[in-house]
């Protein structure tokens, strides 16, 4: 009894410690964004300080935040929708009409994620230049959707596998075409899973920096490029960088918070059904 209680307490302590360690950099960044540049670099770090909104004002004066944010929204939603449109039929085929090669194809898809993106930078850059996709939202949507596609297919595949195949067979007996079977039976049944997949994909696309930095300059640049532009040649301005970062992660943080329940439900979809 006593030991069980102690081990529960210890577990809770470890949990809290881990959460604090993960959260601390974000908290520190948030605090720093309200410091003056001098206070930001002070050693020992200033814990008590007079907050200022000066950094936010400076950041917003220097760059059009709304433009970057809009690009981020369009690109992460667009890439997610495109990835879902491709992955849903793919995962459906693999989950319900598997062949001997299905497992290999899934592994191969995942293996493309193991390749560092920089390895294909030159060919992608040249292709995008040839087709006039550099610094366009479409160009970024295409590359982002391709990069999340393996994960999206994997997640959908495992959610679809939870749906008893007899239910789809029943709809086939009822006269459903393949499209109707997908639309009226499979998709409604896997809504929680699809929602969780979409949320994860949006977050991954939102935080994607590599392609955004390399394939865009001004017009299609996302918030990750916006943030990076404050870590620039003139020297580091910690407070302004922190303010820019806070602005960049705020939307997705709020979004994640709001959709938290859906996300947890989706991620534990199979486990508690």
């Amino acid at each position, binding site marked *: 009894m006593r030991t069980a209680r102690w081990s529960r307490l210890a577990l809770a302590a470890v949990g809290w410690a881990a959460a604090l360690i993960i959260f601390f950099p974000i908290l520190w960044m948030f605090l720093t964004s309200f410091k003056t540049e001098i206070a930001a670099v002070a050693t020992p770090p200033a814990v008590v300080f007079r907050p200022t909104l000066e950094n936010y004002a400076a950041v917003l004066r220097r760059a059009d935040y709304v433009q970057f944010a809009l690009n981020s929204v369009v690109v992460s939603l667009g890439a997610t929708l495109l990835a879902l449109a491709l992955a849903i039929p793919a995962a459906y085929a693999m989950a319900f009409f598997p062949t001997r090669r299905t497992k290999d194809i899934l592994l191969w898809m995942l293996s493309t994620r193991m390749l560092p993106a920089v390895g294909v930078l030159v060919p992608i850059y040249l292709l995008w230049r040839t087709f006039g996709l550099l610094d366009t939202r479409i160009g970024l949507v295409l590359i982002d959707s391709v990069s999340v596609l393996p994960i999206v297919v994997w997640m959908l595949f495992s959610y679809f596998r939870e749906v*008893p195949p*007899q*239910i789809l*067979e*029943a*709809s*086939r*007996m*009822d*006269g*459903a*075409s393949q499209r*109707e079977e997908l639309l*009226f*039976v499979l998709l*409604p*049944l896997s809504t929680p899973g699809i929602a969780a997949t979409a949320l994860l994909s949006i977050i991954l696309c939102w935080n994607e920096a590599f392609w955004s930095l390399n394939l865009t300059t001004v017009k299609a640049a996302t918030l990750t490029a916006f943030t990076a532009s404050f870590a620039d040649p003139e020297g580091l301005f910690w407070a302004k960088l922190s303010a820019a970062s806070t602005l960049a992660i705020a939307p997705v943080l709020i979004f994640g918070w709001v959709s938290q329940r859906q996300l947890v439900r989706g991620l534990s979809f199979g486990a508690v059904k």
Partner: protein
Amino acid sequence: MATIELKNVRKRFGAHEVIHGIDLAIADREFVAFVGPSGSGKSTLLRMIAGLEEVSEGEVRIDGQPAQNVPPAKRGLAMVFQSYALYPHMTVAENMSFSLRLAGAPKRERDEKVRAVARILDMEPLLDRKPRALSGGQLQRVALGRAMVRQPKAFLLDEPLSNLDAALQAQMRLELVRLHRELKTTMIYVTHDQVEAMTMADRIVVLSEGRVEQVASPLELYQTPATLFVAGFIGAPKMNFLEVRVKEAGSQLTVTLCNGAALAVPVPDASMTAGDRLTLGIRPEHVSLGAGELEGEIQALEHLGPRTYLHARLGDGGGMVVQTAGDTAIREGDRVAFRICAEACHLFDGAGQRLRRPALAGSQL
């Protein structure tokens, strides 16, 4: 209403053949049961008729038309699945009317048909509920109702009662028979439970390892099983089997039992010679107590009320089940003698085929 014909139907999964060439003709309005142990291919056969499984070789004809290239929905058949396979996100009414909705029927017509079927199945109060709010028996009714709404040419039922408790099973068996009579539709019923097949079907197809063992009416199967497999599968408790040797062949076969006793069975077979090994089959109700060929020790008793089954161990270690009166005075450990009714014996050769016997006038054997 439909006739269904199978011609040399085969099914292979890769190089592995699971259905080895089945021929079968099912008449319009017939109630046919496919029965066999798990792995006998009965469900696969049903799924091939439904169109859910491709036919590797041979032909499936529905109403005389080849069906291989017809998708399941266009075959005009309805299926009831063992797991019911209801759409969990739809209400009972939506589940039942889904096929009509897909076919583009107007809402009023859909509602009318759903209501009519719900009335027959006595489940009108359930129409607005979701499947998760229903009991097993109710789910079963909805699955049946969903099939009925389509007014199919034939019903395909894949172990539809196996998830219900015994009392509900007995009730649903009667209800299915009533529905079959009222709907006047062909029904194919797959089950591993020979009691279900015996009580409902006009004809039973006994399957084993992808082959048809026998196709016959329930009583025919019980009384004249064509093979050792059918003899052992149909009937509960099982038929007793004894290893015997031919002593004398002629107008009847005289066989030697394990304890050396001789028994003359009225099966004329000229192809047998003395010393051939055979299997003798005898049902528990055709063995009686009293001085006879065999003797054994009672190991267990099953009191069923109107009758009792005695489980005896014979001298050679083999077992024998004997049916006797419900109020028998015999106890465990008693030594008893049995008499085998020779006219009721079945003899099976080494290949498991039953040796034919001439029809006996007025005999139910």
